[in-house]
């Protein structure tokens, strides 16, 4: 082996390390390929379709039209409206469920008889299928004639209302908040229980009032948990479809982008090209909204020092 002996010792070691690294990585390759195929192919296809003019209900061939689908999207009044609904729906549902979830978590974070039972009760809405949740709320709660809400407000002398048709967007938000509050509560509860009790005692000894302790110590401690809740909530809630489908069927002012995408493609219009482009926009929007949410949150909590 005259040739190897000309290499310096360092080079030999490096070559060995490289070989070793390759030897270790090769068995991982199939898993990597599988992951790429499964997760990235659909995305790559929608990306590609988004650049096509492709209508499923005409025999016209697909045609590469570049960014036209995207530019059209922003000129499409219905898309703009759906985008606005998406933002309103996501932001309000995430914020409300985070706030409510935090409040309930604060209540559950103290010891009382039947704590575990109450916690389980509170989690149940999250376990209900979205379609079922939508139907239950639509028929049992919001219904103008049989609804519980109307029954309750009638007792207090208010007139019955057509909740779903009067407030299509906000009835959906109510159901989303109902379903997602337990999730946020779980995250916040984990955060609260991770807080050292002696830190709270130290605050007490330092003379902090309950509200000062909450805003100056507990809330900053909860920050990563709030961020996680906002992030996961935004990603999931921007994709909401089932609730809209069951409650309003996309009625006035309650069509968000995913619902709109479906209408444009399988729903009726068979505009696969532009629908793909819209779905890409949803992904971008999800990233933007989540980012924005995190920024706002960080800004709020960064604030006071010293």
């Amino acid at each position, binding site marked *: 082996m005259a040739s190897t002996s000309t290499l310096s010792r360092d080079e030999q070691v490096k070559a060995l390390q490289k070989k070793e690294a390759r030897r270790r990585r090769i068995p991982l390759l199939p898993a990597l390929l599988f992951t790429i195929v499964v997760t990235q192919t659909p995305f790559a296809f929608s990306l590609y379709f988004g650049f096509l003019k492709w209508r499923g209900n005409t025999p016209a061939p697909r045609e590469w039209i570049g960014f036209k689908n995207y530019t059209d999207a922003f000129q499409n009044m219905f898309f703009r409206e759906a985008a606005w609904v998406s933002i309103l729906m996501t932001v309000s549902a995430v914020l409300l469920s985070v706030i409510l979830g935090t409040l309930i978590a604060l209540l559950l974070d103290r010891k009382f008889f039947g704590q575990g039972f109450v916690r389980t009760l509170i989690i149940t809405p999250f376990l209900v299928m979205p379609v079922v949740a939508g139907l239950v709320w639509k028929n049992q709660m919001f219904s103008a004639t049989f609804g519980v809400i109307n029954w309750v407000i009638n007792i207090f002398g208010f007139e019955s209302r057509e909740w779903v048709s009067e407030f299509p967007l906000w009835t959906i938000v109510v159901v989303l908040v109902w379903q997602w509050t337990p999730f946020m509560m779980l995250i916040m509860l984990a955060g609260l229980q991770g807080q050292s009790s002696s830190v709270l005692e*130290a605050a007490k000894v330092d003379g902090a009032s309950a509200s000062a302790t909450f805003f100056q110590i507990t809330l900053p401690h909860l920050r990563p948990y709030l961020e996680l809740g906002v992030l996961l909530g935004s990603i999931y809630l921007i994709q909401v479809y089932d609730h809209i489908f069951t409650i309003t069927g996309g009625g006035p002012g309650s069509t968000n982008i995913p619902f709109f995408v479906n209408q444009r493609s399988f729903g009726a219009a068979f505009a696969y090209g532009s629908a793909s482009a819209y779905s890409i926009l949803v992904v971008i929007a999800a990233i933007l909204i989540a980012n924005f949410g995190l920024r706002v949150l960080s800004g709020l909590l960064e604030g006071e020092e010293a």
Partner: protein
Amino acid sequence: MAEVKYEAASRIYPGTEIAAVNELNLDIADGELLVLVGPSGSGKSTALRMLAGLEFVDKGSIYINGKDVTLSPPQDRDIAMVFQNYALYPQMSVASNMAFALKQQGIPKAERMERVKEAAKILDLEPYLDRKPKNLSGGQRQRVAMGRAIVREPQVFLMDEPLSNLDAKLRVQTRTELVDLQARLGVTTVYVTHDQVEAMTMGHRVAVLDHGVLQQVDTPRRLYSAPANLFVAGFIGSPAMNLIEVDRTGDELHFGSAAVPLPDDVRADLRASSSKRFVIGIRPEHLGQDQNGTACGVTVVEELGSDAFIHASMPHEGDEVTVVVRLDGETEIVRGDQLSIGIDGPVHIFDAESGARLGTPVT
């Protein structure tokens, strides 16, 4: 500046029968450093937390500076506490941590920063004021916790095992710094530890607790030279006092082959006592080689340089007991040697059943 007074203060945790702290009576003078010491479960931390207001006082009262604070929340007691794990506010900088209590009092920012800087100077924390606790070493965190207490200029410092998370060397060093700091500030301090060495080296007076009951409160020297009962005798001192249970032989007690020389007051108590079993307590340094002593086999020799501790097996009441003898470090005794051991100093006699000390304590 304040005196602290526990008056028959008890804490009984809900769902338990036995008091965690049982009718504690304790007077702590202004500027005193009092150490509460005891094994785990002795109620020392509970006693401290009662004073802090973090633990409810079920019976009795607690006074700070003559004012009954039994039912006051911690906020109203003007105390500062150093926790075992320091309990620093993790999201705040060192400066904010130290200023937190002042901020709650509504002290303006300029004055807050002034006082924080002063305390930081005392504790050598000036370079770290902008850091977060997670970026500090254990010793620095400990100092921040101290700083947080000092800045407040409270009536009383409460310290709950503040040194137990430090490594051995740093602990010894910080110990002396703490004593010095306390003396300079002159603030009444109640200090909890499970470490009797810490208690003895730091405390002006030391209160020994066991099972929630105060056993003895005295200066370190008197705790050592005149332990009030068997528990204190065994707890204070390292290595521990030799405690050997014996039957009385009339008015005499025998250690090995020899009768124990007893002072008059002890002999009087012994005569008056109806007990059969007694415990002889002898510090390792009060045993020595003695021509007329008892023959013992050496089992272990611990050499510390300045001293050597000889563990020897002594025949006693038809059995063997191990006694520890302190000799000077120059000794050449090794395992397997035979030694003749006798008493060479004061002896403490306790009732084996009640644990009480016999005789009037010497001063």
